[in-house]
């Protein structure tokens, strides 16, 4: 357990109102997003088979694999639509090579998106090369809608550079 170096900065969920004209009950957003950083631990499950459990990381060392998770919840009574969670990767980590190949990624700071296999980077000499996990700058998830009261979790593995 690592409470000293893990600060969960109290939900300072910065609300940025993009619609200034809004006399609505929109002071609190319909959706909250709660992030965490965990590591995976293989344990013996109830059925005796190995199971993977999320635990508080014991340490944070270069090469360590971590799980960046975001838990979202629609606390309102309304359906929200066109829901997109975007997670920029901190510079000190890279996307783990075993990340889900279906993840929607960007390697150019969020300008262009796609699966890793479809992304490429320009070399300095004008040629291009396929993007690698280490090139990823952003991860995002797109959901058509979230029903009132429903919640979910998205997560991706990273490795400390």
């Amino acid at each position, binding site marked *: 357990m*690592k409470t*000293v*170096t*893990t*600060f*969960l*900065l*109290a*939900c*300072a*969920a*910065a*609300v*940025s*109102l*993009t*619609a200034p004209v*809004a006399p*609505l009950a*929109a002071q609190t*957003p*319909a*959706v*909250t*997003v*709660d*992030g965490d*950083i965990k590591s995976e631990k293989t344990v013996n499950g109830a059925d005796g088979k190995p199971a993977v459990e999320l635990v508080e*990381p*014991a*340490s*944070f*060392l*270069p*090469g360590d694999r*971590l799980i*960046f998770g*975001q838990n*979202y919840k629609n606390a*309102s009574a*309304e359906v*929200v*639509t*066109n*829901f*997109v*969670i*975007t*997670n*920029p990767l*901190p*510079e*000190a*980590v890279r996307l783990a090579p075993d990340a889900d190949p279906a993840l929607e990624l960007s390697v150019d700071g969020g300008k262009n998106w796609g699966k890793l296999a479809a992304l490429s980077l320009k070399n*300095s*000499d004008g040629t291009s090369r396929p993007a690698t996990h*280490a*090139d990823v700058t952003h991860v995002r998830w797109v959901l058509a809608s979230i029903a009132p009261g429903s919640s979910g979790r998205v997560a991706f593995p990273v490795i*400390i*550079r």
Partner: protein
Amino acid sequence: MTKHARQYGPFASIIATALLASAATPAIAGGVTAGTLIENTATANFDEAGTPRSVDSNKVVVRVDELLDVTVTSLDTGPITTTRSDAVLTFEVTNPGNGSEAFLLTANPAVAGNDFDVTVRGVAIDSNGNGTYDEGVDQILTGPLTTPVLAPDARVTVFVLVTVPDTAADGDTSNVQLTAAAVTGNGAPGTIIAGQGQGGGDAVVGSTGALADARGVLSSAVASVQLVKSVALRDPFGGTSAVPGTTATFTIEARVTGSGSVGNLVVTDAIPAGTTYVPGSLALDAGALTDAADADAGTASNTGGISVTLGNTAAGSTRRVTFDVTVDQ
């Protein structure tokens, strides 16, 4: 103007590459520097009742811990051949961790299997970084023998100054072991030293155990001198009896054996009582030497005897000094 564009083009692309490299790769082989904060925030965008909204997650912050590791290497290309005197062994201590760390040094001259054990005179840091021990320049450590604080990936050259004992025989070898241990702590890989990492995180012992050693080898090269004296007699009658008037030719062979060399070798002998030195008869390896104290290696007189200075003489060589005396009446 296209000419200008061509000139600046490659320059601009080099800068671009450097910027990309710094963003995409860690600054050091050991990984992200200890104490670095990893701050993760996600942003959600959605439509709420037709109005676009944006909300940030909480910011999760973790601090990168310090990985404690060390390597020690002997920089000597092979055994240091040494006489019964002072010798210097050279090592390199490297910090492969991701935090700035000093290392405690221990020089152990009593390694199992040694033919002889040296005395450690001191441990010095290569202060001027030239890779060679410079007396009076390179700092000899006192008190706890610790290296300067080494940045991640930094290395320092360490000299172990030893004295070879007189008991070391020719061909004997001796190992000297230098151990370096992270000042923050060491132990089994994975050991966590809470709160002691650089930058406020924990310190975690890496795969090296944060303790490493290397051995330097000394090979004793001892040369020894053996003097063999012989005499040949020639009497006035053509025989070999010792009678007044007989000429006695003395030969002194200086044989240097072992390995290495001896320094300042001087062969002296007295003129036997009842005999008289034959002036001008002194020779070294069949080459005549003058009797006077002058530029050549030899002096000789009836009262002072003979003296031939051979100086530095390599093992395996033999020098031959000859002189004549006559038996007195």
